[in-house]
């Protein structure tokens, strides 16, 4: 019944783990050869795989887990998907309906534990609810602002049979979809942007989710307005475009932050305007006279920044409506763009190249030369994530995947495997620090089992680098619990798991190691022993305004 419904929804992959409370589903899995089930090694891995799959191919990721610990192990993965608006369906087994509330074996209140990290959730206690619930769940997960939906199904319901009902017709009175564009608002927004002396557009994940990259480009070029992206919006606008400001936020580029802080009109599209984007809120974009906010979720309006013009709509439709409304561009535009070019020269991205140690940026630059814009990069969380965001010139959408809102360490490996299942036609690279990598390293078994062609780039600095950098710079230089000297020998670890690996300690060995990785079919890991003192720059000190960003020292 459940599996049939999933087939009808067009599901190809299920990432899951069986247990007592979902045995009835697994009993019939073999009767549905169209559904390919990937046995993970921990349920968190399943959630991240489904997440990576969904982000890479756009289809909702599907997860199975049993009751109690199985379902609770999904919580971090659900939160990761929820914070980044990723469509996902989690189907969890629940104890028999007559046992609910009796503290049965492996019983837990899954709805209670997950309702703050899901877009919606259902507890199914009767078979006749099931077909409608599954169809609704897919609709809710994938429409509007996408997100994870959890269906908790009692074991007796899994065993029951029901008549197939017509699921074409959906009636969800409490589910409101905002798609319609207020044309007046669009005209006002377009004219404010074009008529501004110093406009800036910031693009978030919503631009990618609604496939609005073309319309964004048209608007930016028509209004001659520069475009920065959030960490999750990377790829929404090509980094090498003359109007690109690269990444914004508290680890964004100096020229983007200068532009934001000096802008008089700021248009924010498909983004939540969270604290990592604004830094100190009271000092965010202090010269802006007109904030314009475009988002499909009405609750984002004024949640953090009160816009003067708000458009609650799909980003693509809103931008499309704005483009023809751009008529007269302000005469001072060339001066503004010239100023930004000057900031670009004054505040370049730079890193230490002179101390003889292996620098993470060198590794990433070599990777980019090979991958160009033909590979998906899945980054973990921490310094590796920001380096991978800043040192690649993403010029196409959908090539950079990372856990932005939740900042979940351990995300990269399982998400990269999921991305490869979703886009087997593209090379997939996983970039991670050794700290996050070991949090979900058991999923290497999945990579080996399915011979997934995923190349793992470990930026190993023998410490929790981002925390170490914060302690050095903002917490009095007291290094506390960041030393990761005691870690496995990753080459031997890979050998134990059954995949080839190399260790690289010198600059000269970067290229040959990538050659070896590219020659090898299937998974491959390179343990880059990078400079343990390498830092992420620019960075805005915690609690300060965006204008106070610190840059990399001018290394000799």
């Amino acid at each position, binding site marked *: 019944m459940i599996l049939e419904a999933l087939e009808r929804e067009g599901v190809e992959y299920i990432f899951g783990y069986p247990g007592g409370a979902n045995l009835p589903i697994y009993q019939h899995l073999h009767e549905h050869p169209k559904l390919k089930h990937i046995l993970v090694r921990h349920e968190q891995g399943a959630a991240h795989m489904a997440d990576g799959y969904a982000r890479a191919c756009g289809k909702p990721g599907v997860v199975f887990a049993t009751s109690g610990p199985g379902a609770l192990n999904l919580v971090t993965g659900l939160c990761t998907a929820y914070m980044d608006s990723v469509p996902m369906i989690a189907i969890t087994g629940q104890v028999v309906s007559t046992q609910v509330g009796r503290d049965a074996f492996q019983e837990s209140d899954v*709805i209670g534990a997950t309702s703050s990290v899901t877009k919606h*959730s259902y507890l199914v206690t009767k078979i006749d609810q099931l077909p409608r619930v599954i169809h609704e769940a897919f609709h*809710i997960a994938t429409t509007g602002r996408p997100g994870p939906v959890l269906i908790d199904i009692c074991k007796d319901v899994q065993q029951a049979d029901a008549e197939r009902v017509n699921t074409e017709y959906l009636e969800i009175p*409490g589910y*409101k979809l905002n798609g319609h564009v207020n044309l007046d608002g669009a005209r006002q927004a377009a004219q404010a942007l074009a008529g501004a002396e110093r406009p800036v557009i910031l693009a978030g994940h919503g631009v990618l989710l609604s496939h609005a990259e073309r319309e964004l480009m048209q608007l930016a070029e028509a209004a001659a307005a520069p475009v920065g992206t959030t960490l999750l919006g990377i790829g929404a606008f090509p980094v090498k475009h003359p109007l690109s400001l690269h990444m914004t936020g508290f680890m964004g580029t100096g020229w983007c932050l200068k532009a934001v802080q000096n802008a008089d009109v700021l248009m924010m599209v498909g983004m939540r305007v969270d604290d990592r984007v604004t830094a100190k809120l009271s000092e965010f974009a202090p010269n802006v006279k007109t904030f314009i906010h475009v988002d499909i979720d*009405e*609750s984002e*309006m004024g949640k953090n920044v*009160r816009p003067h013009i708000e458009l609650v709509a799909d980003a693509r439709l809103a931008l499309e409506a704005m483009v023809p409304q751009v008529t007269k561009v302000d005469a001072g535009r060339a001066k503004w763009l010239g100023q930004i070019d000057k900031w670009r020269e004054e505040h370049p991205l730079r890193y230490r190249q002179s101390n003889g140690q292996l620098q993470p940026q060198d590794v990433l630059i070599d990777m980019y030369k090979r991958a160009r814009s033909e590979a998906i990069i899945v980054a973990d969380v921490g310094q590796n994530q920001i380096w991978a965001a800043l040192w690649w010139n993403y010029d196409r959408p959908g090539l950079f995947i990372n856990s932005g809102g939740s900042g979940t360490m351990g995300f990269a490996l399982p998400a990269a495997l999921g991305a490869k299942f979703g886009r087997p036609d593209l090379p997939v690279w996983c970039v991670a620090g050794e700290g996050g990598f070991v949090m979900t390293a058991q999923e290497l078994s999945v990579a080996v089992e399915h011979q997934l062609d995923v190349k793992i780039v470990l930026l190993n600095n023998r410490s929790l680098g981002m925390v170490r950098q914060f302690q050095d710079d903002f917490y009095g230089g007291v290094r506390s619990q960041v030393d990761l000297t005691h870690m496995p020998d990753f080459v031997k670890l890979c050998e134990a798991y059954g995949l080839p690996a190399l260790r690289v300690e010198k600059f000269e060995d970067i290229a040959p190691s990538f050659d070896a990785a590219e020659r090898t079919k299937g998974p491959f890991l390179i343990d880059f022993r990078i400079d343990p003192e390498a830092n992420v720059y620019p960075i805005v000190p915690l609690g300060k305004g965006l204008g106070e960003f610190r840059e990399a020292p001018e290394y000799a």
Partner: protein
Amino acid sequence: MLEIKPKPAVAAPQTHNRIRVLSLLVVDGQNTLTKISGVIRRRGFHVRGISVGPSRQPGHSRITLQIDHGHAEADQVRKQLERLVEVVEVEDLTGDDVHNRELVVATVAASELDALLKRGAKVLSTGSDGTTVEFSGDADQVADFVNELARHGIIDVVRSGPVVMRKSE
């Protein structure tokens, strides 16, 4: 929530201007109230009054909420609640011309009840351990009534949350 001590003075809360009055139409279901209260807690709002009852629509309930919106923009309460699939409709009645009714039931020791009856109280029962009365009114009237009750020696008192309806034009 509301704690009534058998003493006068029910001071208006300092946060009076942060209170939103909302009327919600919700789908009946085992998860509905959990999800609504979860959103309220998670977003830093605070419930000052709540009442739940059936609505005219089968399968749906009407919830009246008085909510302190905390440090968030006032309209965030409505927007965040509207995100819930269980919530069909949210009407913000703050500042509107409304009927706002609350109910209080109290048992008092005194047998001289003229002052209470003059205010519109109704006697529900009398017994050896006191007289039980009920009274309904808007928030101020109920607060006044509770103050008056205190002079009669309150043995027990319970108050409902508010029910609010927009006045017809």
